[in-house]
């Protein structure tokens, strides 16, 4: 009887209607989130007011007054804002180069892991296990104190051919200095690239239309090479000149020196992240169906061709998503720079917070910097990921 009543007579009351309940719980949840956020914010502003701290960003216009060891042009009389920018650029530099080299290292090691050479796979395996299972901070300190600072002092530098010096203050090498004609040369270089591509495309079209062999690549390359060469020699003065390092009383001046702090951080990040990327690459390759491999062999492709034309394109769509998170990790891990004295954005931000007594605004700036870097990386990688996905029609 009761069942009958439930089934036929009464509609479902609204407090048991799944759709109403779903919406209601969502609203409730949103309320909870807003409340908690509000509570945290109220607590923070209350605590800040109590300690006489403000939440403004006005301090960014004040003179910083501290020196930064490396990075873009900056002097202690610049503002805190500029100092922070130096840190941001330093972070971008080390994480950008880190991502590039870690990818190269990771792909090489990942492929080597699958090699038929017994010794090679064992060595590579040991590297991956050793690096993945020890903390990055420990590795950074190791690279800095136990490897780089143990190199010979400046006055007894190892000298490599081409005026490159290796010493415990880094690697000093000759560097190119632009002369007044440099901008002119850049123009001819740009013209070479544009005209080269243009020639190549026009010739291809012509070839397709008429069927005559027009050597599009050769002609394009010649255009691309000849124009900058003309631009290099015609103005009379070469657009760049070499600046040679000279050993002064304490350090080398002239040329370019990679500091030990930067080197240690870069090497540490690359070696560490490279091990993770290697495993991702290995997994990606192994996930390609065996039949693809056999088919490629049957076609008579060489090992290199097989990797380049068959395996990698298919492995890539498996590799990209986990690779993205490794890139993000690398960028975020660069904040360990402070341990080896590299002035990245976290280190500089910390100094600013300390000198101004404004920890909250500075932490907000640091967090939003890392957030933007990560989101932009993720955005790019997601776009790339969509490009390499299977297009199913």
């Amino acid at each position, binding site marked *: 009887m009761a069942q009958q009543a439930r089934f036929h007579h009464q509609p479902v009351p609204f407090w*048991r209607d799944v759709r109403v*309940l779903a919406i*209601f*719980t969502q609203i*409730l*949840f949103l*309320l*909870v989130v807003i*409340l*908690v956020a*509000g*509570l*945290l914010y*109220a*607590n923070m502003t*209350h*605590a800040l007011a*109590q*300690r*006489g*701290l403000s939440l403004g960003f006005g301090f960014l216009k004040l003179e910083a*007054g*501290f*020196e*930064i*060891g*490396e990075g873009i042009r900056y002097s*202690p*009389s610049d503002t805190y804002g500029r100092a922070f920018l130096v840190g941001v650029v330093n972070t971008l530099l080390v994480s950008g180069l880190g991502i590039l080299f870690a990818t190269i290292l990771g792909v090489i090691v990942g492929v080597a892991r699958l090699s038929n050479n017994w010794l090679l796979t064992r060595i590579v395996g040991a590297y991956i296990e050793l690096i993945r299972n020890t903390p990055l901070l420990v590795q950074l300190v190791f690279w800095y*104190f136990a490897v780089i*600072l*143990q190199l010979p*002092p400046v006055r007894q530098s190892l000298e490599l051919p081409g005026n490159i010096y290796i010493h*415990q*203050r880094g690697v000093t090498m000759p560097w190119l200095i632009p002369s007044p004609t440099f901008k002119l040369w850049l123009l001819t270089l740009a013209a070479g690239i544009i005209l080269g591509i243009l020639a190549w495309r026009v010739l291809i079209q012509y070839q397709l239309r008429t069927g005559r062999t027009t050597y599009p690549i050769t002609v394009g390359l010649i255009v691309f090479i000849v124009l900058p060469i003309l631009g290099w020699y015609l103005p009379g003065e070469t657009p760049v000149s070499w600046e040679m390092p000279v050993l*002064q*009383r*304490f*350090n080398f*001046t002239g040329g370019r020196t990679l500091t*030990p*702090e930067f080197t240690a951080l870069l090497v540490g990040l690359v070696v560490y992240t490279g091990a993770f990327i290697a495993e991702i690459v290995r997994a990606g390759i192994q996930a390609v169906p065996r039949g693809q491999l056999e088919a490629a062999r049957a076609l008579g492709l060489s090992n290199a061709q097989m990797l380049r034309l068959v395996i990698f394109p298919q492995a890539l769509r498996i590799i990209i998503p986990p690779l993205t998170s490794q890139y993000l990790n690398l960028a975020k891990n660069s904040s360990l720079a*402070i*341990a*080896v*004295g590299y*002035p990245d954005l976290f*280190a500089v931000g*910390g*100094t600013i917070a*300390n*000198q101004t*007594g404004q*920890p909250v605004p500075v932490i907000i700036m640091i967090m939003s910097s890392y957030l933007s870097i990560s989101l932009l990386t993720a955005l790019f990688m997601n776009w790339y990921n969509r490009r390499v996905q299977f297009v199913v029609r």
Partner: protein
Amino acid sequence: MDRRLLAMTFTLFVVLGLLLSACQMAAQPAPAPAAETSAEEAPKPAEAAPAAQQGSRLETVKARGKVICGVNGGLPGFSYLDETTGNFTGFDADYCRAVAAAIFDDPNAVEFRPLSAKERSTALQTGEIDVLIRNTTWTISRDASWGNFAPTTFYDGQGMMVHKELGATKLEDLAGASICVQTGTTTELNLTDQMRARGIEFTPVVFEEIDATYAAYEEGRCDAVTSDRSQLAARRTVFANPADHIILDVVMSKEPLGPVVPHGDDQWFDVIKWIVFGTIQAEELGINSQNIDSFMDSKDPVTRRLLGLEGNLGEQLGLSNDFVVRIIRHVGNYGEIFDRNLGPGTPFNMDRGPNKLWTDGGLLYSPPFR
């Protein structure tokens, strides 16, 4: 369906609870002075919250049974972990003990909290520590934003240590040099100021950890390292070859070092102030840990007030009247603390210099105990 209902009821309760605690927070008078409102305290029952928010830090410390003292922890002579005993030793550590002795009559009622130069301001501002005794320079901006500075216990100046083989004798000899420095210090700013004023180019190599700073210098990454002169002398004693390093004969700044307490607590500030003054006044009167008993029947009213035999000076601060006696018995007067940790009998062999009593031409001066 039932599970969903259950979850909903639960959520409802959570929301109600949050709403209630929010109302409760809003209902409290907003500018409660010396309040310790933190996230975990907010949702406590109504009757418990106001009790915790009243009173001085002195009461909190007494109730806790120990004082939490922020120290350096990596600075021989000031606060350094003694490998044989496992205790912190040094000048700053002894002042932490003096605070504990004054409050609890027990110099060991201290929890030492080693802090890096960068961490210390936050630890102080958030009230994580009761007092910071960590070779911290008294400056106007820190006084305004960090906390209240008690009397200076050590008058220092910034110096520069270089590798002897470089043959540098003055700052101008360091043009083009790399200089190691610890971040979060006044040293970092003074260095830049001094070098800018003299037009000397240099490259700073900045570390957060004191050990990393000196390790990088000792390994040769830097030509020089800069810090307070006392710190340079102290760290040099733990180098592999102390004789290979010289401290230049320059004083780049004034560095008055002393205890700091969090803002907004006058009573606690007074307690720390007069504990420091007590050690200075005791030395001025010639009272030390060895001879203090012979002063207990002194007729001198100045001595009698200091030792709490007359008046209620200690009670006015919220301490016991004999708080100076407790300090002297357990830790000693200023001269004893200095000599024990930094004086001629120690590897540092530091001269008292400006840290002499005013009666000897130094800067140590205690206002009257009356």
